[in-house]
């Protein structure tokens, strides 16, 4: 974990209101693991007090890439930052995905796919086996990362809410169909996306007895584990910190 003013190498609109932000910082980049995030100060003043947590989407040498969606005032301000400006970043933060060898299915909804792409690349590099990736999006315009994932050898299946591309329906339904027709189950499922998606997916994984890791989101204060602001209920009844104990948890650890 370190704090630095990172230079914005590139910053551009990807599609609808999704942006890609590329930051320069060699030591952060060299430490980053899939599932970890950066906590970014989006403005100089104190109008918006808190930093915004955003997952690391990809590392390229000393560059850290982020994919984010403009959803509110903070991400709106972030979208105004121009290339070559510097922004204040703390990272890499949190506990990422546990890498396991074997057949993995990655299930991403919305911007959730951003961190899974980093995971896919890492799994491929480490075990030389590209995972299957299921991507859920509202429509084909909102679809992120699929080409890049195919390029590294992943089998990519898409589910859109409106059927404009791939499977017409929820990515969890696609997952259910996928697993039901597989002769062998995957060894591991990794998921990142909206809570209802994660809930449904965890239910399915329990049903099929597939271990599952989920990446969670909560409003954050410190982002480093000190304030107890970002908790999620653990299965032992205790509250776990998304920022430090997570954001990636084993599905058995947390009550969704």
């Amino acid at each position, binding site marked *: 974990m370190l704090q630095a003013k990172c230079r914005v190498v590139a910053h551009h609109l990807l599609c609808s209101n999704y942006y890609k932000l590329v930051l320069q910082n060699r030591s952060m980049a060299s430490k980053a693991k899939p599932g970890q995030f950066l906590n970014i100060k989006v403005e100089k003043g*104190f109008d918006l007090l*808190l930093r915004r947590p955003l997952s690391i989407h990809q590392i390229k040498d000393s560059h850290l890439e982020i994919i984010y969606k403009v959803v509110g005032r903070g991400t709106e301000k972030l979208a105004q930052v121009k290339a070559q400006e510097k922004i204040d970043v703390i990272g890499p933060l949190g506990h990422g995905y546990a890498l396991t060898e074997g057949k993995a299915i990655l299930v991403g909804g919305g911007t959730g796919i951003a961190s899974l792409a980093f995971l896919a690349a890492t799994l491929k590099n480490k075990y030389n086996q590209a995972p299957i990736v299921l991507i859920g999006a509202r429509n084909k315009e909102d679809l992120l990362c699929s080409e890049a994932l195919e390029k590294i050898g992943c089998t990519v299946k898409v589910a859109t809410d409106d059927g404009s591309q791939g499977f017409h329906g929820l990515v969890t339904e696609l997952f259910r169909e996928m697993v039901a027709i597989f002769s062998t189950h995957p060894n591991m499922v990794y998921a990142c996306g909206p809570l209802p998606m994660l809930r449904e997916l965890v239910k399915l994984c329990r049903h099929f007895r597939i271990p599952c890791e989920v990446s969670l989101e909560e409003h954050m204060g410190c982002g480093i*584990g*000190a304030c107890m*602001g*970002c908790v999620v209920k653990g299965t032992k009844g205790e509250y776990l910190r998304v920022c430090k104990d997570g954001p990636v948890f084993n599905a058995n650890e947390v009550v969704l």
Partner: protein
Amino acid sequence: MDGLSVKISSLKLKNPVMVASGTFGYGEEYAQLIDLNELGAIVTKSITLKPRLGNPQPRLWETQGGLLNSIGLQNVGLATFVDEKLPYLQKYDTRVIVSIAGESVSEYCQLAQALKKETFDALEVNISCPNVQHTKKGLFAQDKDLSYEIIRKAVRLSHKPVIAKLTPNITDIGIIAKACEKAGAEAIAVVNTFNAMAIDLKTKKPVFKNIVAGLCGPAIKPQALYKVYEVKKAVKIPVIGMGGIMNLNDALEFIITGASAIAVGVGNFVDPKIPINIIKGLQHYIKDNKIGQLKQLVGSLDAK
């Protein structure tokens, strides 16, 4: 650095910049980002007799220039604190102020008693957390007799300097400050968070399970400053000021108004370097303004 040293009654700090309870954990995480040795003091997250689960999520909500929190004092509890957290903090060359919070007078006593043999520099008695149940009528720090009683007992049982941390949610904070002074407090910490709430328009529910939460940050600074002013007028013991301090100027305002030391709370979330930046800023300030000792500035407000 000597020009910055201040005294909080019997407690000497190398500089007046502390980090506020609950915003800095037990120091471990922030140690990766800043040098804890540079701080005037670290106030720990308030600890309770037993570990506390805290309140359900969500616990945080951003507002215009402010932050609402409803942590509910989640903490490791006295035993783990003493075994694991305190030894870590003792390694640093800074003052360690242990904050305690009880659900009853007796719990405060047990906490003060149990901590008696431990090594640290001062005891901050948090009688003002808006996120947990105190009495049926409100917070301990809204009741001058209870405030007196808790502080008196803490002073008796602990051999450490006792700091009373007060709530701003009160008609006349001076009355409580005086009761605490009479009870033997060596300083008054002003302020804890302001009662406030938020609602989620989509669900028409309060954001927080408890409905009420505590507001902090720059939004409250003008109010916090006035509370410091009121307390300073009411008591002779030193005041520790906090509430929305984000930079050198904020810190100077509190010091000039009467705070012998100041604490950074939510500022640590915004930028962990804020306390260090303030310390550096104070050094330059006294040098540039040819002020020999920072403490000369304390309470130098020229109110006609």
